[in-house]
C-alpha cells in the first residue's frame, strides 16, 4: 500500500492541508502518515520580534515564548484529534508520528523510515542533502 505523509508543525497547520491530504489518500487508497513536528519556529520568531523590536526584557520574552509554545501544542493536539476523526470516518488507514526539533530534518528522517513516496506540507523548506527520494507537494 502506498504511503502519503502529511506534515504539520507548531507554526503552520492550515485547514487546506488536512482536506487535501484526506482527499489524496482516499483517491490513491493510500495509508496516511501524519507527522507532527513540534518545532519552536513560531514562538522563537514572535519572541525575537518582541525582544528586538519591542525592546522587552528577558523575563517578558521568556514567559511569552512559554505561553505561545503551550498554545501551539494545544492547537496541534486539537488538530490531530480532528484529523483522526476524519480518518476513521473515511476509513483511511493512518499513523500519527510526533517528532521534536528542526522541521526539514525530521521530514526527511521520518519519510525514509516509513518509506513514504509523497509528502504534503505547507512550509517551503530546503530538505537536507540526499533527501529527494520522494515527491514533495506544497499545499
Amino acid at each position, binding site marked *: 500500500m502506498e504511503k502519503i505523509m502529511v506534515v504539520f508543525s507548531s507554526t503552520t*497547520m492550515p485547514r487546506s492541508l488536512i482536506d487535501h491530504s484526506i482527499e489524496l489518500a482516499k483517491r490513491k487508497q493510500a495509508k496516511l502518515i501524519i507527522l507532527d513536528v513540534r518545532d519552536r519556529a513560531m514562538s522563537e520568531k514572535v519572541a525575537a520580534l518582541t525582544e528586538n523590536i519591542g525592546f*522587552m*526584557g528577558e523575563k517578558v520574552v521568556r514567559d511569552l515564548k512559554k505561553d505561545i509554545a503551550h498554545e501551539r501544542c494545544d492547537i496541534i493536539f486539537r488538530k490531530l484529534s480532528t484529523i483522526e476523526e476524519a480518518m476513521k470516518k473515511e476509513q483511511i488507514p493512518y499513523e500519527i508520528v510526533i517528532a521534536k526539533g528542526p522541521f526539514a530534518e525530521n521530514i526527511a528522517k521520518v519519510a525514509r523510515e516509513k518509506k513514504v513516496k509523497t509528502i504534503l506540507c505547507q512550509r517551503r523548506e530546503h530538505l537536507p542533502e540526499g533527501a529527494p527520494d520522494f515527491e514533495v507537494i506544497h499545499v
Partner: protein
Amino acid sequence: MSSGRGPSRRSFLIGLSLSLLLAISLMPAPEGLSLQGQRALAIFAMAVVLWGTNALPLSVTGILVMAALPLLGVLDANEAYALFGNSAVFFILGAFILAAAMMKTGLSKRMALILLKRFDGSPGRLVAGVLLTSASMAFIMPEHAVAAILFPVVVGIAESLDLEPLKSRYGALLFLSLAWGAIIGGIGTLLGGARNPLALGLLNQYYGVKIGFFDWIVAAAPLVAVMLLLAYGVLLISFRIDIGDVSSARQVIEEELLEKGGVTEEESRVALIMALTLLAWISLGNRIGLANIALLASVLLFVLGVMEWKDVEDYVNWGVILMYGGAISLGSALVSTGAAQWLAGILLTGSELTPVTFLVGLSLISKLLTEGISNVATVAMVLPIGFTIGSALGINPVATVFIVALPSGLAFMLPMGTPPNAIAYSSGYYEVSEMIKPGLILNILSWTVFIVMALIYWPAIGLRLL
C-alpha cells in the same frame, strides 16, 4: 524562518548595507554637498537597509551608526556620543522602568483583569472589552508589553469558551481585538510606543522645541477614539460572532483575580507612584522636564523597595537606549552637515509640493513603511527628511512630528509587522489571509481619519500646519 535561507539573506543584507556605505562615501561629491554631508548620507543609507530589514538588531545598528559617525569624520567623537544624552533617551529609560515595576508587581495584569471584568455579558461586549482594555493599558505602558500581558488571559478565555482554532470566528475576533487595541492605544500617549519619545527627541535636537505630555494626548485623542470605534466595526463585520454565550469568560477572569489575591503593598506603591508621575508629567512636564520626572519616579521605586536592579534587567531590553542614541545622532549629523537640506532640495526639485500634499504624502509614506518595518525605525528614517522638506515649505515642525509618528504607529495588516500583531497571530485562531483584508480596510480608514483630523481638528486646538 527557513533555516537555510536566513543566514545567507542576513549576510547579503549586511554586505549590501556596507557596500552602500562605501560606494556613497567614495563617489565624487555632488555639487552643493560637503564631504561630511556625503558621508552622513552614506551612513544613513546603510542604516536604512539595516533598520528596514532587521538584518542586525535595531540596537546594534544604533551602535554601528554611533561608531561610524566619528570614524568617517562626520562628527567629532565627543559630539556624536554627547547626542546619546538627549532627554528623550532618559525619558524612555524612566518610562520603561515604571512599566517594568507594573509588570513585576502584577499591577498591570490586575488592572487588565479588572477592566475586562466590566465587559462580560454578551459576546460583542467581551470583544469591546478586550479592545478597550488593551488600548487603555497601552496609554500607560508600551503596547508590546500590553500584548504580552494580555495574551495568556485571552488564551484562557478562548479555552474556557471551547473555541476551535482556525474554525472559530470569535477566537479570531478576540485575538485581533487584543492586538489592534494595543496598537491604537499605543499612539495615544508618549508611553504607548517607543517611537513617540524618539520623535520628540529628534524634534528637540533639531529645533529645541518640546511637546508636552498632555499636548500629545490632545493632538492624538480623536484619532484614538475614532479608530477604536472603526476597529470594532471592521472586526464585527469581518468575523461574524459565532457564539451565543460567553459567561464562562467571567469565571476565568474571576479565577485569575482570585488567584492573585488581594492588592499587595508593592502594587499599591507602584500604583501611587504611577498616578503621581502621570499627574506630574501633565502638570509640571513643561517646567521640570518629562525625563527628570520619569527618572525621579524610577528612583522612588528603588527607594521604596519595590524594585531591584535585577528586576529592571528582567523586564527591559536596554537595546532601546542604543537604538535611540544612534537614531538621534544620525538625525543630528544629517542636519549639521547639510546632508538633509541637500537631499530635500533634490526631492523638491520640480515638485509642486504644498503643505497639504506634504501632509498626505509624508503620512502615507510612514504608513506604508510601518507595515513592513519596525515603527521606531520608520520614525528614525522618515522624520529627519520630513523635518528638512517641511522646513523648506514652512511647515510647523511639531505638526511634522505627528504626521510621521502617528501613522507609523498604526500597522494593522501583516502578522509580523509589529509585536502585538505577531503575538495575536501566534494564537493560531486565524490565517494570514484572513487578517490582510480587514487590516487593509483599517489602514485606509486610519489614514483617512488622520488626514481629516490634521486638517480640521488640529487648527482648532492651535496646532497649525504652517
